[in-house]
């Protein structure tokens, strides 16, 4: 970790941000990028069963939103679950071990790629049922309000999830009860292969907030600091008891919905479109922004550190043991009951 240099700088947004915070943002964005590049390699070599949904291209909005939170705030995510907990501050070792189904995984090998939730950093679950995290986030916020603490819950959801009934129900209850929740729509333009304009009548999901009397904004999801500013304002509103905010981050995923050959020859988006978004890579944009305030050598050192951290996470995951088969029968209940384990027959 690079030494924190605690002087204030100004950037285009006009807000003073501690330089160590900028470096931490840069570090977490880099961790997500390198983590997912490593996952892609593992997947392509057949090491990961099932599916993998990568956050590459969306690191700016993930980190910008998460860094606007306090450590003890809550965050709820979705199936594209690798970036969110890293953004919230989770260690990458247990996440990588989970990807490989190891006993040391954050979920002890029971959740896998779509459910990388690290509750120790307030990451309350990454659900792969699209939209289902929305009311859960509202519930966490209700809990905070009832307990009289000032914790805020951040809820990531996609443009696809905004078409689920859950979105309406969650927005309505959060507004009705003035709950401390920030809804962060990661609008990456597509639900699997269906473009948003074929799934919703309105282009901007944020426009729907007016129907609940909830403030909203649209931000450039490729600009980490723009997201950070908008979510910081939303978090402050939530913390002082003024209720929810909807922030829509326009972003893009550089990979398909998930890894694997399923989408290889799909033409739902053009090469030109992808290339244009890659010119607006959130890591490159952020590095350019930092050029005036952070020494290039510091950024390079951070890049090197991130690569080492991911290499160490891979090493940790590879060296970790697989769970014992009997572990398949634990964690179903917290208050134990006799469970019918079935009788397996192999003939």
């Amino acid at each position, binding site marked *: 970790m690079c030494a924190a240099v605690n002087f204030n700088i100004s950037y285009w947004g006009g807000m003073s941000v501690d330089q160590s915070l900028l470096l931490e943002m840069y570090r977490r964005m880099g961790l997500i990028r390198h983590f997912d590049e490593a996952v892609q390699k593992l997947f392509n070599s057949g090491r990961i069963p099932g599916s993998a949904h990568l956050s590459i291209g969306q690191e700016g909005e993930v980190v910008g939103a998460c860094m606007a939170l306090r450590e003890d705030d809550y965050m709820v995510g979705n199936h594209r679950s690798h970036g969110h907990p890293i953004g919230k501050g989770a260690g990458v070792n247990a996440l990588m071990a989970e990807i490989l189904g190891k006993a040391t995984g*954050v979920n002890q090998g029971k*959740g896998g790629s779509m*459910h990388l939730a690290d509750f120790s950093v307030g990451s309350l679950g990454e*659900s792969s049922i699209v939209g289902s995290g*929305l009311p859960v986030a509202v*519930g966490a916020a209700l809990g905070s309000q009832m307990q009289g603490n000032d914790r805020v819950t951040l809820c990531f959801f996609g443009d696809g999830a905004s078409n689920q009934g859950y979105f309406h129900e969650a927005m309505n209850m959060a507004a009705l009860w003035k709950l401390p929740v920030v809804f962060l729509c990661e609008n990456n333009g597509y639900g699997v292969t269906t473009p948003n304009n074929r799934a919703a009548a309105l282009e901007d999901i944020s426009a729907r907030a007016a129907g609940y009397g909830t403030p909203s904004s649209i931000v450039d999801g490729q600009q980490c600091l723009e997201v950070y500013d908008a979510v910081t304002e939303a978090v402050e509103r939530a913390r002082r008891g003024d209720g929810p905010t909807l922030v829509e981050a326009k972003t893009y995923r550089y990979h398909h919905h998930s890894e694997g050959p399923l989408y290889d020859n799909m033409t739902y988006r053009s090469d030109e479109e992808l290339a244009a978004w890659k010119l607006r890579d959130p890591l490159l944009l952020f590095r350019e922004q930092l050029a005036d305030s952070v020494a290039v050598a510091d950024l390079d050192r951070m890049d090197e550190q991130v690569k080492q951290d991911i290499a160490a996470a891979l090493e940790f995951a590879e060296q970790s043991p697989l769970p014992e088969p009997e572990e398949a029968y634990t964690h179903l*209940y917290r208050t134990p009951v006799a469970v019918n384990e079935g009788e397996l027959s192999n003939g």
Partner: protein
Amino acid sequence: MANVTFLEAVAQAQREEMARDESVFLMGEDVSGNVYGSSGGLLDEFGPQRVLDTPICESGFTGVAIGAAMVGMRPIVDYTIASFMYLATDQLVSMAAKSSYMYGGQTHIPAVFRAAMFYNGGIAAQHSDRNYSMYMNVPGLKVVVPSNPYDAKGLLKTAIRDEDPVLIFEDGNLWGQKGEIPDEEYLLPFGQANICHAGSDVTIVAIAARVGESIKAAEALAKEGISAEVIDPRTLVPLDTATILESVAKTGRLLLVDQGHRTCGAAGEIAAMVAEKGFWNLQAPIKRLTAPDMQIPFSSALERGFYPDAAMIALAARELFEE
């Protein structure tokens, strides 16, 4: 001892647990108004946040309960009518039942979901579900089916203190039924069946309001010299298989009485369990009495006869002694 209705017993359990633990709260449609009678006085005592009226959005407010439970609250969700749970089933199955397991024990969902079954009352197909069996098929949920005021209170208090999601199916036909409950506090453990009527010739396992009908049948059978043992499982998940198997080992005959539908129902599950583990003790084929695999009609002329009553149960028990 006090003589109270089933619903008063439920109300007592809720009030006592809310007074004991400030993380316990009640939520659902119209709960503050005490429409059905299980939340009377709670609004005055605990205020509108702990007696939380929700919009009509079962899937959403079930998710809210789950999120609140994740951060240390203990919600009691009142669905009023069990048929409305279908709207919430994604949250019950995908989140409540799976979160502890899927996240490797990092979290758990201490929430109670109360649902009343109103059948045999002319409210037709969409309001008459007796759907506990569906949720028995979901690992991670616990399924409770109280049959009298004493059990309703003791099991609900246990459910509220349980660390896992518990579904309580209350038989609306029993809500007005009175029973004795002790003045002092008590809880009833999950997974312990109640032998409601001891006997030695035939075992009758009955669920919810079928328990009372089966006891009546057992009393009638006794006059004919047939000694029937009536077992109320109290909880279907976990199921007290030992008590049922011990009874069958003694009687050699098993009759299952269930107001739910027949296919993949609770009766079928218990029958399969006994067929696997108690087959050599059986002296006659296992028999099920259930509602038919048919939607519930509106007219009482049509619905009458769908649910096994004492006469039907006694008749079926006698048939187990025919060669």
